[in-house]
């Protein structure tokens, strides 16, 4: 029996807990950041527009919320430090979680909340690139929020009675009581110190009961799916996988075969868009804007798709005549991200690995940097302001447009129709992201690039690996709400998938019947197998069972202790096993003729046999003994103790 607790309702930022053979395993801890869209952007330099927004007034004219809520571009935003929606922490006691398995760097952003605030004492497992890049993402997040000190932290609006009165989408925001401010760098460091690094196909034993193994998932540097198995059950956890050939090592599908349960999360968020087409559109929009003298803004994460975009541009800029346009990558971790990408040869696709063998850097952005076409800066302050030339292309975060250097460029370039902002990250609705900046003159292009599995690929994968049961978020079991006619945009498999939603507990259908046990060689030697049926032998085993670290071993029972020489009664030694009576295993029926012959051989001369309805009665007159033999029972009735022993020897 396995229980699954679903702590996050976000299908691509999962957080689930699996109880499996007495271990409690958390699968990912994604942080839902879409909550930040309800907050005002945090400008890096004083913005006259954002600082003079009118406070929001209720319909009845009451103004008690005007400090917390501001009206901007026809929407109401919370004027406060942005907050994130945490995974459920009340559904079960998170201090009982033994291990956390991380599948990729986007799915670990809630880690500090879990490891630092819940009494968690276990171990986190992740691959080296996941940890290093995850650290960069967290560093960038903390940095972009901490560098804009905001005195105010709004909480009044979260009151259930108050929230009811607010306009959408604030009115409908879920779990607002779970929203928390960003963690700090010390907390990030503490959380990351609890991670143990693992490699693909490494078998990790948990308490001797369960084995977990990360497999390449093809989605990002070091991204993994996980196999959680005992000797008899196999659960596959598929999270954020890709079958497209980008930079990471290809997905390992074969190892997912023969799963009893396959948990499927992290499918593409834009099932209708083709990533290749989107990259093409990205390049052509970028080229067009620059040629017309405009600037291009690409809100992005500091790692991941940006490597692929830079590689495309590397091939594209010369042919498109963009060789003289500067590319800027602005992030507190830009340099680290570019450097780290070059040292993970073992986690890259085959082509890139081959380059390292030459030895050349696997990503061509090394050359873009060397030739000064790509420049990176920790922020817009400092060197950047001296080097800054327009028209240019700027890659910077955060994709929510609520914090980070991107806010500055939105304010700076938003008013000119020459400029373009191109959205490539699929995590945020671009219209919601743009809401506080409206009205905008700048062009907005939506080219979401999500390389994760689409529904066609999923159904192919499921046919290939054939799990007994599929478990997935409820969103995948019905067409997207905006395209209810597209029944192709849902998981289709037999038996139909079991679905879950936030704060739900699910019992997984599978019951094991066996467990591994080891028979020590000495005991094995002492066994006497008997062939009962052709090819099937039986042996009776009487042994001492030792269980340690969830491993079971059968040993030869120790010889009975020598009676103590002295008359003093000794305490029974602890080594002597307690004898539970052995009931010998008897089966079959007794062939009467043979039995009688044997008796005669043993000196019973006056054996008499009588037939009865159910069998025979054998009489030993001299011994005053009567033996009733029936098909599946034998009853010996006698007056004297002595023949009994002989009887025993015959059996």
């Amino acid at each position, binding site marked *: 029996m396995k229980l699954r607790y679903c702590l996050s309702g976000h299908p691509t930022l999962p957080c689930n807990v699996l109880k499996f053979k007495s271990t409690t395993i958390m699968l990912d801890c994604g942080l839902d950041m879409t909550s930040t869209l309800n907050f005002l952007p945090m400008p890096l330099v004083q913005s006259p527009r954002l600082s003079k927004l009118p406070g929001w007034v209720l319909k009845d004219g009451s103004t008690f919320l005007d400090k917390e809520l501001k009206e901007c571009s026809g929407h109401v935003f919370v004027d406060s430090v942005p907050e994130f929606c945490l995974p459920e922490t009340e559904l079960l006691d998170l201090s009982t979680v033994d291990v956390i398995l991380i599948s990729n760097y986007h799915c670990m952003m809630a880690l500090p909340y879990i490891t630092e605030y819940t009494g968690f004492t276990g171990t986190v497992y992740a691959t*080296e690139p996941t940890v290093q890049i995850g650290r960069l993402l967290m560093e960038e997040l903390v940095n972009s929020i901490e560098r804009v000190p905001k005195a105010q932290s709004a909480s009044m609006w979260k009151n259930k009675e108050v929230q009811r009165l607010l306009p959408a989408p604030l009115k409908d925001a879920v779990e607002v009581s779970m929203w928390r401010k960003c963690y700090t760098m010390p907390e990030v460091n503490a959380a990351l110190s609890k991670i143990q690094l693992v490699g693909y196909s490494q078998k990790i034993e948990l308490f001797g009961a369960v084995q977990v193994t990360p497999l390449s998932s093809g989605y990002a540097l070091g991204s993994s799916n996980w196999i959680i198995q005992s000797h008899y059950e196999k659960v596959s956890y598929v999270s954020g996988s890709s079958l497209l050939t980008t930079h990471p090592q290809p997905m390992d599908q074969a190892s997912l075969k023969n799963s009893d349960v396959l948990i499927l999360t992290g499918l593409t968020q834009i099932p209708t868009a083709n990533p290749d087409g989107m990259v093409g559109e990205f390049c052509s929009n970028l080229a067009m804007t620059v040629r017309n003298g405009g600037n291009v803004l690409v809100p992005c994460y500091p790692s991941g798709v940006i490597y692929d975009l830079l590689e495309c541009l590397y091939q594209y800029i010369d042919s498109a005549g963009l060789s003289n346009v500067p590319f800027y990558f602005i992030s507190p971790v830009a340099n680290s991200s570019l450097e780290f990408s*070059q040292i993970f040869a073992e986690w890259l696709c085959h082509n890139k690995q081959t380059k390292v063998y030459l030895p050349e850097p696997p990503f061509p952005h090394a050359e873009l940097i060397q030739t000064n076409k790509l420049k990176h800066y920790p922020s817009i302050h400092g060197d950047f302001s001296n080097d800054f030339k327009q028209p240019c292309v700027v890659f910077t975060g955060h994709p929510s447009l609520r914090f980070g250097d991107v806010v500055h460029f939105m304010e700076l370039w938003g008013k000119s129709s020459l400029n373009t902002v191109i959205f490539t990250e699929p995590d945020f609705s671009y219209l919601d992201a743009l809401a506080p900046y409206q009205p905008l003159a700048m062009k907005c292009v939506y080219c979401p690039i999500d390389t994760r599995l689409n529904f066609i690929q999923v159904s192919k994968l499921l046919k290939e690996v054939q799990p007994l049961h599929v478990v997935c978020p409820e969103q995948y079991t019905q067409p997207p709400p905006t395209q209810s006619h597209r029944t192709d945009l849902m998981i289709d498999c037999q038996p139909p998938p079991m679905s879950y939603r936030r704060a739900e507990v699910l019992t997984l259908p599978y019951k094991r019947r066996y467990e591994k046990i080891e028979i020590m060689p000495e005991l094995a030697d002492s066994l006497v197998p008997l062939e009962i049926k052709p090819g099937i032998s039986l042996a009776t085993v009487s042994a001492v*069972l030792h269980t340690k670290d969830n491993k079971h*071993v059968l040993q030869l029972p120790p010889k009975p202790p020598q009676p103590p020489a002295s008359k003093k009664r000794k305490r029974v030694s602890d080594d002597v096993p307690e004898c539970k009576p052995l009931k010998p295993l008897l089966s079959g029926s007794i062939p009467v003729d043979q039995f009688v012959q044997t008796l005669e051989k043993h000196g019973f001369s006056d054996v008499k046999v009588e037939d009865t309805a159910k069998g025979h009665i054998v009489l030993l007159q001299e011994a005053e003994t009567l033996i009733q033999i029936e098909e599946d029972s034998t009853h010996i009735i006698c007056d004297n103790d002595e023949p009994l022993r002989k009887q025993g020897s015959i059996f």
Partner: protein
Amino acid sequence: MPEIKVTPLGAGQDVGRSCILVSIAGKNVMLDCGMHMGYNDDRRFPDFSYITQNGRLTDFLDCVIISHFHLDHCGALPYFSEMVGYDGPIYMTHPTKAICPILLEDYRKITVDKKGETNFFTSQMIKDCMKKVVAVHLHQTVQVDEELEIKAYYAGHVLGAAMFQIKVGCESVAYTGDYNMTPDRHLGAAWIDKCRPDLLITESTYATTIRDSKRCRERDFLKKVHETVERGGKVLIPVFALGRAQELCILLETFWERMNLKAPIYFSTGLTEKANHYYKLFITWTNQKIRKTFVQRNMFEFKHIKAFDRAFADNPGPMVVFATPGMLHAGQSLQIFRKWAGNEKNMVIMPGYCVQGTVGHKILSGQRKLEMEGRQILEVKMQVEYMSFSAHADAKGIMQLIRQAEPRNVLLVHGEAKKMEFLKQKIEQEFHVNCYMPANGETTTIFTNPSIPVDISLGLLKRETAIGLLPDAKKPKLMHGTLIMKDNSFRLVSPEQALKELGLAEHQLRFTCRVHIQDPRKEHETVLRVYNHLKGQVFPFFFYPPRNGLELIILR
């Protein structure tokens, strides 16, 4: 009884030409495929005809494992796979896979182009050989086939060096390759988990040495280099392009920086730049300090160390030159050595082990008149210094690794017989395990006694462990079950279940005995007394309490 057989084709009571055959549970694995630096004839490669006289190597060997890129561990690989013929998988780590072909090509060039040997492997053969290589991650469990699995552990020694665990069922062998138990300036320390192999095959280069602290050796080295340079002498440091070279470069670079020295430091051959590039790209394989700081400052970008040109050797004034190869047996290091050997102001520092037969070995053993090619006699007046910078574990390190892995048997290779003998005794004394040290071609057989895994029905196990939860939990309990053996599966179930599964009915055996008891008490009381008396005895009987107060049934 199951057994593991080990036969060294090279490195048996010897250093060089590492090549060890292991047979475990019907699988044959070859560990390393090295060449011997001390020989130029047939003896430089292992004798592969030992493996099979007629028949293809591919049919006999399940896989080949290469521990690291040093030529005494991989130098015979193209000969083995392309000239003798082997098409099975060859496993090595990513850095080894990257660097190995470059060293092989270098070796080929020296042998064929400079010494004019024919009948040697070609560049194309190196390429074809490398196509058979499968790269492995650290700690990844690689399933060679359904039964055979291998796993790599970090070994320190050089970039990408690994130890390997070979496992079939519950039998296993661990092979260390060359390893280093103390972190150095650029690499970390070897590590293996408590994998309790049936056999640990370990190198024993420094079987009798316990080295002083690294810091002392480094200070000594810097002092000697500094003194020589101060008095206008030239320092030659023969090294292999990758490995010690980088460690010593880091050491000299920081020293030059600190002391503000001006004498030039050169690094020979075009490999330098390339070699440092490998270190940059495989920085995850270096030690923690370098990994942590590489974004701010890459330790493998040297300011003071420049590329060497042959003409520089005749320049006047002091200089320090790192030249390959490391044992002075050929190539540029030997050329420079010949030029500088006559001047007592100069110095050669041998930072690593030298194989018998090499010039390096000769001068280290005190020889000062060397016979060179063409009967020329070279007189060595320059100072000769030996400094153990080779990253092998010393005696303490070897013992430490044995303690980590907890093997049931130990087998020594890659060392000198006399020193091995000493270490063997020490290991047997301290760990009470058998220790072997076969010579080349000699087979060691180790009997293993694996326990047998069977499936126990959960019902039976739960019933038994539930009893174990009683107050007296620590006391071992006897359990009874029936083992069903069918085809190759073993299942342990309760006797009742076994009968049910096989469609057999249980045969009941009852025994009734009439006993006459004379007792003045009432019938009912007598029966109860007898029952209570018997109940207190430890007898292998089932007792049924008196029913209706009239009958006492005892069942056996």
